[in-house]
């Protein structure tokens, strides 16, 4: 399955047929730091994603002079 990462924008291929939580673990992403987007909605970490899914992992962190 395709995973879109941001800042900078790039795409990686990972194995589907498992839970979002496991995909995040493989990519070493702390769940608290991203939104997991599939199509026009968000998915929780226990959702199973398939090989033909496209996931966007959108970072939520902003910094600097807030």
């Amino acid at each position, binding site marked *: 399955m395709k995973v879109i990462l941001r800042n900078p924008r790039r795409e990686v291929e990972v194995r589907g047929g498992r839970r979002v939580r496991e995909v995040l673990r493989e990519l070493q992403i702390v769940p*608290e*730091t991203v939104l997991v987007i599939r199509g026009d909605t968000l998915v929780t970490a226990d*959702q199973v994603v398939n090989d033909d899914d496209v996931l966007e992992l959108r970072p939520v*962190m902003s910094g*600097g002079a*807030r």
Partner: protein
Amino acid sequence: MKCRRCGGEAVLELRRHNAAFCAADFLEFFRNQVREAIRRHRMFTREEPVLVAVSGGKDSLALWDVLIGEGYRTTGLYLDLGIFDYSQESRARCERFAAERGAPLQVVRVADAVGAPVPVIKDVTRRPPCSGCGLSKRYLMNRVALEGGFPVVATGHNLDDEAATLFGSVMHWQTDALARQGPALPSTHPKLVRRVKPLYRLTERETAAYAFLRGIDYIVEECPFAAGATSIAHKELLNRMEEASPGTKHTFLFGFLDRARAAFERADPVPLQECTRCGQVTTGAVCAFCKLADQVKRAG
């Protein structure tokens, strides 16, 4: 995972609340947290005009969206920092957001006020870019609010911002900063407007989820100068602790506000006066903003 309220399919898990919500119930949860913040700290009333500082990012646009939905009298303020494409794109998003909702938006260019945009200020001062940028933003927010008759400025600071600031202040035992940190800073001088942070009860993942689920077109890209900022390093640390123990950030910030902040408040507050140059409030004769403008002028 099921929504705690309706039992439908959840879209977001909030581990610190041991809960998950569907989209509709999450949006209501979010609005309730903002309502609670405004009520608890008497941030503003429905009659008062509120100046909402917007950057084009998720937090400030989510805040403005909630306040418009709640019927508050809001005006957006976009401070154009002049940071290359980043500022152009974030300004365009604020303008589009305002136009779609028929909401008034004021745009002020930092370069017009200081004499140069943030990238030049960074080079002239030889200090981290966030330093001159933050100083300019705080100054201009207050000045624009005063000139426009707004008694209060609302910013999009969220729980992560506040927890990271608190962490930084504690790490260096900046007791003055600890005394000043809070979700609602009162006006301590006739020429200082109130500053409030209605999103302080919500994490940045929650504000991002709200913005996404509301279809708000916000700028996902980070400010090019933010890379390596201390605040981001602190947020990363706190998120690792949060991962191991959900609720850590919440407990850290709320415990401070409820039980520790009062201990840092000074009995003898620093006397404030008006800057001899611009008339804005400062602790010395000439304010830091005027000194910065002087420095830029000399370098130019």
